[in-house]
């Protein structure tokens, strides 16, 4: 039985910086020694709105990267899109503000024991955790190529420093306003063949993850994806963020994306059953 991330802890953490990066905000949060336990793919659940808030639920954000060498012992970086009330509140928090956070939560991207060819695919700000992962894969001797996609240029998140760890980066926008015109999944079959890709790591909208699965299904390419389903608690007690997943016998059960995910093996997720009654 899957259990909650054994390193998860609730702490009061200070915002070290909050910068606007295009349509997103980059928040750096001092999390001290917890940074050493955070892995690419893990997420953080943050209390939003302050004491008299009418928002009763935590907000979950993918950790884009952690740093343990900073003057704060350890920090985490989040890339947040100010879409809803909770994320708007978070993006309005200034340097020095205190946040009630629970982290690290969920599963992490599995890193191969031997150097392999890896393809990282990100949709919108779903690309954020892929840069930390790219650094890690790079340090293990993997060749890392990256594809980023979004509907339009302003929704692409691709920081300059993040590009250092990748061998190549291709950008796709549906409206053609940046990079190639088309969907981020369009070039995947060709890249798998040309680059001899062994594993695809993906993070982004469910439709993108599902499209990647239909490309990798029946091949030897491993697909590790970070799924997205709305969560009330982030710690495994509410049962709202479930995803249909098949076990070895083919039995499909609803697994919590906060405990058994967010990183899951794309080949066992029952993409056609997402959002349907079993």
């Amino acid at each position: 039985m899957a259990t909650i991330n054994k390193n998860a802890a609730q702490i009061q953490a200070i915002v070290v910086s909050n910068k606007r990066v295009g349509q997103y905000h980059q928040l750096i949060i001092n999390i001290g020694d917890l940074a050493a336990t955070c892995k690419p793919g893990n997420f953080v659940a943050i209390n939003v709105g302050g004491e008299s808030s009418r928002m009763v639920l935590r907000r979950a954000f993918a950790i884009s990267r952690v740093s343990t060498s900073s003057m704060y012992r350890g920090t985490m970086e989040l890339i947040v899109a100010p879409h809803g009330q909770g994320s708007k509140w978070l993006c309005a928090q200034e340097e020095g503000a205190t946040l009630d956070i629970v982290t690290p939560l969920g599963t992490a991207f599995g890193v191969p024991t031997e150097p392999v060819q890896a393809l990282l695919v990100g949709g919108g700000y779903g690309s954020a955790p892929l840069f930390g992962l790219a650094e890690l894969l790079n340090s293990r001797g993997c060749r890392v190529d990256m594809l980023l996609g979004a509907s339009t240029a302003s929704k692409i998140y691709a920081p300059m420093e993040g590009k250092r760890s990748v061998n190549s980066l291709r950008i796709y926008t549906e409206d053609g306003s940046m990079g190639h015109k088309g969907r981020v999944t369009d070039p995947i079959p060709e890249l798998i063949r040309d680059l001899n890709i062994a594993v695809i790591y993906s993070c982004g909208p469910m439709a993108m993850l599902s499209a990647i699965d239909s490309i990798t299904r029946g091949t030897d390419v491993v697909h590790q994806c970070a799924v997205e389903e709305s969560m009330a608690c982030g710690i495994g007690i509410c049962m709202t963020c479930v995803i249909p997943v098949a076990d070895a016998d083919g039995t499909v059960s609803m697994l919590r994306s906060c405990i058994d995910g967010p990183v899951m093996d794309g080949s066992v997720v029952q993409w056609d059953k997402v959002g349907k009654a079993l």
Partner: protein
Amino acid sequence: MSTLDFSTTLGNAWFPAPTFTASGCASSGRELAQFFDLRTMGGVVTKSVMLKPRTGRPTPRMAETPSGMLNSIGLQGPGIEAFLAKDVPYLVDQKARIIVSIAGETVEEYSTLARKLRAVSGISAVEVNISCPNVENRGLVFACDPEASRRVVDGVNRTLGGELPIIVKLSPDVTDLVSIAKGVVDAGADALALINTVLGMVINLDTMRPHLGGKTGGLSGPAIRPIAVRAIYQVHAAMPQVPILGMGGVSTGRDALEMIAAGASGVSIGTASFGNPTAIMSIQKELEQLLIAKGFTSLRQAIGFAHRPESE
């Protein structure tokens, strides 16, 4: 420092503190144990378990609402056999006090579940959840039908009566809660759990359709607290001898004290744990301090205090 007797009872079950998880809001305790020692609260009320494994309703299963949330889980769970094999032994190992919540689709299923609990050691009480709003057929919400409620409780009482306290969880979505409460007490309930979630709906303005996969969901959180306080007050006024486990939007010590003053012998914390995994610990501490500050020497003195005569 004044001393306070913080203990409480539900039927013949004794608990060192009046704070509990709410069924369906703590799974089987494993995850919260990462944040605090389960022994420090009154007890764990486990997620309502059914006879067979159940996958529940489609996603989206939740929608946040002002000071609350709607959930539409549909009693997803492992079924009683796996629950007894894995979850109860875990809680026993943790030395947590356990209230097992059961839910059935038929009157007979409740009796069968009760029978399976008879020989299980380490359980303090059983909660009979007859009020989950997230079932396909609204006719299956036993707690909305006085006769069906009575039959369910009667069946459980014939199996377990006298062995384990029977706590019956009722719905506020009824016209006359007191008569339903009296019916289940007559049928053998030792205590009542008030209240389950309130049936609600959110329309998604992008799709212009109901947002939840199950269309309707149960509203919980501070938004429903006044409904819970009212329900507890009315039922306690009618049957002051029947212990009540109060719940519905408790997120601070003062909220817990409100329910206790209305007539609750204990409080369950549900949605607050979603927002804060250590909510139960802080509520417990705040409640303890509030009782002392108000001059109570025991929790029991405060139960139903809002009902005292005008002259006091």
